[in-house]
């Protein structure tokens, strides 16, 4: 039997809802809020500016109808939902954002931001397409600097190098700790379930007290490790249990029909890769204060292995490492309907997985109900297949 969830974890699962109230508190205290969408957003600069950062990625199918009065129907649901929320004023986080920052990541978002800018004060950061130091660092540094200057101008503040340096140290510390959460999945059986791992990492986005956030992560890691060492595992040890890595972009809203089902059917999600996962956490910002902090920040974000860059060799290398380190048996790429970068790149992941000798399942879905049964059937078959081959491997040992 799996152990009961410590109370800590439920708090995280509920963090987004509770976040609405906390956000109001933050505003009532006179703090200003920066809404964002993407792992490319330089958190160091927002933090140095004294702003509270909150994710505005839409997750509900409800505002999509409104969004489609202005956007094409054949567009990613995350983009439509995010824009629809602003049109409807139905997302408190967007509503309370004093400024919204967007990056020219995918075509859909980049073009949507042009419309969003008609409703909210916006800062758009242009990204390089080719993630190469020689060819792109200079332009990227110029955009990151422009963002800093934009915040200074908008909020009538000055962001000094000292403030950036302090922010870099803090964000590195937080990021490293967050990355340790995923390390819990390296245990066999994993020291935390994938569902909880996701609840925690997702919930962190909606906690606005930095120190408390850090302490929470630390205590969870400690608790999980302690439990594991005492033999209290979140799932029964089972050598045939499939260990999966889940990857993709913006899939959190599809949890109930995807990742929850995987674990319900007896697999363990041991790590997440992609923008809701470990990918941008494994690289910290250089803390050498003799160098320009903006350049150091830019260097880190240039290496974000997101599917919007080409050629995205860094992601392929990272995925290969992740498969090895977490001893994964299968890879699931969840992409949202009409998301060209992640969907097309899944083919490259499939080839990589093939070379690593593990299967890949590609789930394309959106925020509307209707495809649960079909997805479930495919997950079931995928898990069954892995389990069988693990069983077979065991009997040959």
């Amino acid at each position: 039997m799996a152990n009961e969830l410590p109370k800590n974890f439920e708090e995280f699962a509920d963090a987004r809802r509770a976040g609405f109230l906390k956000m109001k508190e933050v505003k009532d205290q006179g703090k200003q809020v920066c809404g964002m969408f993407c792992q490319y957003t330089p958190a160091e600069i927002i933090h140095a500016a004294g702003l509270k950062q909150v994710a505005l990625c839409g997750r509900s199918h409800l505002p999509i109808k409104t969004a489609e009065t202005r956007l094409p129907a054949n567009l990613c649901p995350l983009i439509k939902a995010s824009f629809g929320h602003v049109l409807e004023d139905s997302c408190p986080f967007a509503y309370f954002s004093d400024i919204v920052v967007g990056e020219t990541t995918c075509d859909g978002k980049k073009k949507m931001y042009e419309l969003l800018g008609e409703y909210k004060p916006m800062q758009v950061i242009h990204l390089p397409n080719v993630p190469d130091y020689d060819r792109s660092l200079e332009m990227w540094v110029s955009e990151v600097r422009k963002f800093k200057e934009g915040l200074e101008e908008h909020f009538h503040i000055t962001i000094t190098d000292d403030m950036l340096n302090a922010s870099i140290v803090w964000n590195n510390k937080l990021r490293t700790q967050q990355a340790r959460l995923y390390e819990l999945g390296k245990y066999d059986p994993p020291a935390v379930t994938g569902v909880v791992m996701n609840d925690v990492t997702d919930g962190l986005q909606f906690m606005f007290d930095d120190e408390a956030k850090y302490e929470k992560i630390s205590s969870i890691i400690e608790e999980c490790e302690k439990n594991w060492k005492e033999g209290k595992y979140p799932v029964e040890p089972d050598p045939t249990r499939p260990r999966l890595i889940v990857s993709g972009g913006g899939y959190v809203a599809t949890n109930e029909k995807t990742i929850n089902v995987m674990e319900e059917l007896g697999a363990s999600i041991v790590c997440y890769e992609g923008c809701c996962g470990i990918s941008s956490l494994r690289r910290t910002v250089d803390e050498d204060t003799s160098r320009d902090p903006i350049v150091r920040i830019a260097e880190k974000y240039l290496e974000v292995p997101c599917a919007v860059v080409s050629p995205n060799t860094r992601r392929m290398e990272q995925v290969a490492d992740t498969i090895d380190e977490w001893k994964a048996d299968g890879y699931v790429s969840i992409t949202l309907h009409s998301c060209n970068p992640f969907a097309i790149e899944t083919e490259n992941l499939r080839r990589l997985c093939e070379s690593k000798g593990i299967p890949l399942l590609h789930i394309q879905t959106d925020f509307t109900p209707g495809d649960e049964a079909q997805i479930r059937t495919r997950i079931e078959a995928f898990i069954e297949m892995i389990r069988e081959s693990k069983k077979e491997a065991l009997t040959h040992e």
Partner: protein
Amino acid sequence: MNKKTLQELISNCHAAGKKTAVSFCSHVPQEILEAAGICSLRLPYVGGVDDAASHILVSNVCPIVKNVCNVCEDSALADVDLIFAETSCDGKKKMYELLSDQKRIYFYQVGQGADREYVRPLIKSEVKYLIRELGKRFGVRITEDDIREAAKLVNEERQSILDLMAIQKAKPAAAWGTEIFRALEEHRTVPDIRERIAANRKTKEELLAQKSPVGKSARRVLVTGCPMSGVYEKIASTIESNGGVVVAFENCEVIKSAIRHFDTENEDIMEAFADCYQQTACAIMSPNTVRFDLIRQLTDEYQVDGVLDVTLQTCHPYTVERDKMMRLCREELGIPYMAVETDVTDSDAGQLATRITAFLEMI
């Protein structure tokens, strides 16, 4: 264009001892390829190539991306020396990564906005990288003079396209837009730039020499949106058999790329590249102010009665930009606007005819 023509074209270039490069986008600086003496093919939609896309790509991507994928994987391009993977839209840039022969692929980075400080330095540095790359791959040395000479020719070609389109400024328009587009499609596969220019000029003279087939009451339509190569027959002929005439194609194949000018007199040649390519009215630019200015200019110059925005399935840059284009036309310019989304199959021909006819009647 079909596969056989393409194959002949490439083998002719090779027979003449030239290297061949193919590109699929007007962001790629043709001046350099011309200066390098490389046979540069800006490929249109190619029919008759083997289907590779359905094995490699997800199904919900734009038909151009699928076609480019098919062309690149087809035996027709087996001997081509270089394939340009420009990072314009997501669909294309990610598709290029999946092509089987990555050694022939060169990623050319495109900026994403005309009004940002980084864009001019980026264009310049990408141009320099490209020159260096061609040196490395083919041992060609490109001098400033080579570029200036090549740019004069490329400018001339652009001008010949604009001149051909400009015959439609007459009232009634001098020809059917379909004829003009078709002629340009044929000419752009001619490998020699001087011959291309001559062919454009010749078509212009021929069309001007005839009596205009266009009726006085024909509604003057400006077509804008995605590249039209794979769908122009369907769209333009529907317009022109239902009481309209296409007076201007703002699209990539015609005005959008031809209206850019390379200042061959600029002392700093790299500045000239930046000036020229920054002015690309492409929807991957955010915000795409150049396109909106261009539409203002063209609707006036060509005395346009209606704007038809033609987008291809899953082309996010152009489909999301429709909202702003609609407001520009209807609210600012007071010109009727309609958007149609289509693909390269004929399955929507009936529905398109109904909608386009209704639009033309309304004007």
